[in-house]
């Protein structure tokens, strides 16, 4: 048997520009969502939250998927960097997942008067995922740093992506039989300017997620390098 491992992290030069772009886009999205897009006749102001709620949810899924992809790369022995990248991606996913729950809850309260609706499949799915990925962090922080922790975190991240479709299916099935739908909601039919607003918001949220990802990754790598230096000096 023979092994060797490379370690080449991506460059850090573009991060400030990325962060600025994200901030700008989010600002633009807020302007569009609250001032440019037309008010919805049925739901009023609460509908504007949807411009953010849906992109945030989609971004959370994307982060979990990205984290699982990085986890797979790590397990296949492609390099030292993938464990940290997977962890940061899952972290982002969890943050955006929490925001999904928050925005979803606000929307539910504004639309239906309840802070929580079991009928909303997406919300319930995110609740399950939130529990799952919270356990990811508890697991990761209860194992000492090293390849064991990295491997176990990676396997758990893979379990996460398989859980997403399985849970969704389960929630759908449960809704039909165990909790029959009481509230029904028509999906918003989007006119031109609504669609534009949605796209801007989606771009903004995705850019924000990526910028945060790069910033956190940069910070964690610096931290790791610092600890290594400290260890080498005191040894």
């Amino acid at each position: 048997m023979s092994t060797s491992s490379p370690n080449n992290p991506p460059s850090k030069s573009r991060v400030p520009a990325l962060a600025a772009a994200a901030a700008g886009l989010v600002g633009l999205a807020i302007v569009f969502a609250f001032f440019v897009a037309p008010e919805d006749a049925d739901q009023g102001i609460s509908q504007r939250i949807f411009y953010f709620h849906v992109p945030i949810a989609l971004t959370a899924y994307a982060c979990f998927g990205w984290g699982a992809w990085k986890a797979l790369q790590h397990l296949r022995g492609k390099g030292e960097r993938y464990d940290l990248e997977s962890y940061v991606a899952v972290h982002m996913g969890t943050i955006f997942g929490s925001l999904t729950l928050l925005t979803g809850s606000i929307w539910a309260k504004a639309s239906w008067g309840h802070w929580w609706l079991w009928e909303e499949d997406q919300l319930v799915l995110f609740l399950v995922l939130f529990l799952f990925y919270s356990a990811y962090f508890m697991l990761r922080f209860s194992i000492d740093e090293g390849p064991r922790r990295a491997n176990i975190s990676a396997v758990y991240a893979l379990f996460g992506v398989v859980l997403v479709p399985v849970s969704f299916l389960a929630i759908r099935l449960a809704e039909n039989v165990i909790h029959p739908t009481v509230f029904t909601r028509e999906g918003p039919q989007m006119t031109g300017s609504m669609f534009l607003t949605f796209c801007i918001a989606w771009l903004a949220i995705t850019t924000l997620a990526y910028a945060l990802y790069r910033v956190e990754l940069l910070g964690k790598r610096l931290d790791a390098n610092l600890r290594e230096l400290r260890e080498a000096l005191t040894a």
Partner: protein
Amino acid sequence: MSYLADVGTLARKDLRLELRARDTLPAMLLFVVSTLVVFHFALPAGADEVAAQGLLWVALVFTALLGLARAWAPERESGALEGLVLAPCDRSAIWLGKSIAVFVFLAAVQVVALPAFAAFFGPVGWETVAGVALASVGICTVGTLLAAMAAASRTRELILPLLFLPLAIPLVVGGVGASISSEPLEFLAFLGLYDILFAILCWASFEYVVSE
């Protein structure tokens, strides 16, 4: 096939260990019956039979957790897991052998739990039994792997339920659905899907859970 022979050797080892120690299985049996009694007192007077079906699943999931917490205890006590990892057998055989043994224990518990439930709360149909059987496969495969992860953690007993419960939610949905729905086959098929998907994932990834 030597792979199956290894799995058999390992499963037999676990069964022999439990027969000798006799600590986990009696505890699980007592726990499940106690839980069902607690549920009787927890359910308000007018509660219907259907609500009780859900509670059966709560009892099963938590009893399984009790057993899973001890699943890797013999390996931990003497570092024997390393001995198994050193051996030329496939690492996934370690997981499979252990899962089979856990399944046998869980089945033994259910042989007691289901009649007890039927006596305390109401009749248990074939759909429930089928649901319990299929869900048990999922509980054992996923639970054994998660228990191995938890064994590597400092907060062993604390973390296993946190890892296990989100993954058990689809199993509960499938099981309860099979019991109360007019189309139990849909839910049983879903349980089968869960079992296959996660068994494959566990089989492929166990190697990484125990290696450094």
